[in-house]
């Protein structure tokens, strides 16, 4: 069991590599293997979390070399939790994607699931790795698979993917530049070693410069406010089967990486730390408001959700900007919660488009009569986005606000309030459409056969799981926060 972290990344990797070969045997064999591997990763990641809680952080060094020389996976409670989140969303969206691969040939089906598994792998790897350059490689795996999955969404998908490719490569280049600067003053690539080296030397200006590059790199990748330009069209036009995963998890992982740099590598001893936090705080606040305002004007549910992601990512980075343990825990809780909210809302949107082939909000009139669970998910997800208890959105907001109050940054509390009110404006619009607006004549694309009243079981499982996760994460948030705080205590302000 000592190879646990390795197994978690190897399972999806192997399944992805063999998926195309297996697809030649049978069209769906590759996809089933990928699904099985993702489930395996999920189980293992849960085991890993249990072990991390019991025995403390895991440091797994590939090749068995000493620490700054080999590549290390360092798993503490925070990233163990995030890995579970990614794997879970990966499994759910893989299951969900079963319904959207009907008219591809073996190559396309196998290729799509290859990309799917590799996207999960890239995100898991980015979360667990303890090596700055390894992070870059995983970042590129994540990006390349994402470009491909977005491009598979159709004619607008390719343009969105191309724009994302340009911007994403700029981000990767900036990241590499930041790493280069840090490498030039420390000579190491291992994160913990780098943190130790940076504490010794007087490298403040180099660190500040690197941090500027890193913030813009991760800002682009997580679609933080001034860098979000690629995001709405990419989320909107991605392949329907992959959209929940892309929108749900992809923005969070660079955010976690940013946290890693801010708090684990730089730490509070960094001379300009306050200024950096202030910058992040300001852009998060702008993003929270801007994203919500833009989301109000949209008529396409995908666009609404995409712009709302711009706002919600702001919550996470706001937590980083506040920096007290509770606020950081709140940011991570929001990361987990938002993955299921946004993923879930895209599951719901996907379910509706599976059934009626539409994403237009105006076609959603009283859809709850035909699809009660989907409507339930839309409602629960929307309430969670606004921050109504007992959904997880409220509790993450609570911790963020408490953290802000602890550090006496009351402005942030009011920004949170304002942002959730703005969220309410457009999410209640969605709820209004779903429950109140008059019925439109919608023709189901798929006949309602026996047993299939709402959508096939592979769509319903993700939908119901997301509802449950939003509520359970909300009600039992203290357990999550306790787990997160084990690792956060050492690094927070």
């Amino acid at each position, binding site marked *: 069991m000592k190879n646990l972290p390795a197994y978690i990344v190897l399972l999806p990797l192997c399944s992805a590599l063999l998926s195309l070969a297996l697809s030649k045997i049978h069209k769906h064999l590759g996809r089933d293997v990928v699904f099985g591997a993702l489930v395996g990763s999920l189980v293992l990641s849960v085991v890993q979390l249990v072990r991390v809680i019991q025995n403390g952080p895991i440091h797994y060094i590939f090749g068995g070399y000493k620490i700054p020389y080999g590549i290390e996976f360092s798993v503490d409670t925070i990233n163990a939790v995030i890995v579970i989140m990614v794997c879970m969303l990966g499994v759910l969206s893989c299951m969900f994607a079963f319904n959207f691969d009907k008219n591809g040939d073996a190559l396309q089906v196998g290729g799509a699931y290859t990309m799917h598994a590799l996207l999960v792998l890239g995100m898991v790897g980015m979360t667990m790795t303890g090596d700055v*350059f390894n992070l870059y490689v995983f970042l590129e795996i994540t990006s390349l698979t994402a*470009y491909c999955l977005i491009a598979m969404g159709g004619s*607008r998908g*390719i343009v969105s993917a191309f724009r994302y490719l340009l911007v994403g*490569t*700029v981000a990767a280049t900036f990241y590499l530049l930041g790493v280069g600067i840090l490498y030039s003053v420390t000579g190491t690539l291992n994160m913990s070693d780098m943190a130790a080296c940076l504490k010794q030397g007087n490298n403040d200006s180099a660190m500040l410069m690197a941090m500027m590059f890193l913030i813009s790199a991760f800002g682009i990748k997580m679609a933080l406010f001034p860098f979000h330009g690629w995001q709405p069209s990419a989320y909107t036009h991605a392949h329907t089967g992959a959209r929940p995963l892309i929108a749900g998890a992809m923005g969070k992982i660079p955010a976690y990486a940013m946290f890693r740099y801010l708090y684990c590598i730089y730490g509070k001893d960094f001379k300009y730390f306050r200024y950096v936090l202030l910058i992040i705080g300001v852009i998060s606040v702008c993003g929270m408001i801007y994203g919500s305002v833009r989301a109000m004007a949209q008529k396409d549910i995908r666009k609404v959700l995409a712009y709302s992601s711009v706002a919600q990512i702001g919550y996470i980075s706001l937590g980083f900007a506040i920096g007290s343990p509770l606020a950081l825990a709140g940011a991570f809780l929001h990361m987990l919660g938002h993955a299921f909210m946004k993923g879930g809302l895209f599951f719901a949107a996907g379910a509706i488009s599976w059934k009626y082939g539409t994403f237009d909000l105006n076609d959603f009139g009283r859809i709850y009569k035909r699809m009660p669970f989907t409507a339930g998910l839309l409602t629960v997800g929307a309430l969670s986005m606004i921050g109504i208890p007992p959904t997880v959105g409220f509790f993450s907001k609570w911790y963020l606000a408490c953290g802000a109050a602890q550090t006496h940054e009351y402005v942030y509390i009011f920004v949170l309030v304002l942002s959730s009110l703005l969220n309410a404006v457009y999410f209640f619009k969605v709820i209004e459409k779903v429950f109140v607006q008059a019925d439109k004549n919608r023709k189901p694309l798929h006949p309602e056969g026996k047993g299939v009243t709402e959508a096939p079981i592979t769509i319903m499982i993700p939908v119901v799981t997301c509802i449950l996760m939003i509520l359970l994460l909300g009600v039992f948030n203290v357990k999550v926060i306790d787990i997160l705080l084990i690792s956060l205590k050492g690094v927070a302000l």
Partner: protein
Amino acid sequence: MMTQIETILAGKGIYFLTLLLLTLGLYGIIVSRNYMKKLICMNIMQVAVIFFFLCFAQKNSGTIPVAMKHIVHAVEYINPLPHGLMLTAIVVSLGTTGVGLALLTRIKEKYGSIEEKDIIEGEKQFR
């Protein structure tokens, strides 16, 4: 004065050049209206960073990092690590460029052009 400039240029001038290359690439990405040109500029950026990394590997009077019997000191070999890293970076940039070109091919097919304004115009016909 001149000698000062000379030492700075000799010691650190190359960084200036790589950063110049980087900013040129960035400028190109922002300014050019042709997607192919954007892709080329993106490549320029990547190359700039690769140069930037390789600068750290240089050692005065160092030789290539292949172990030889008569050279024993670490000082005499140049730094192998950035070279290894940049091999990865090159492969990544190759992959990115490949995907980008494939996308461009498709865009050209779909929209009949790779000029930004034509594409924006063409996007309206798809949902």
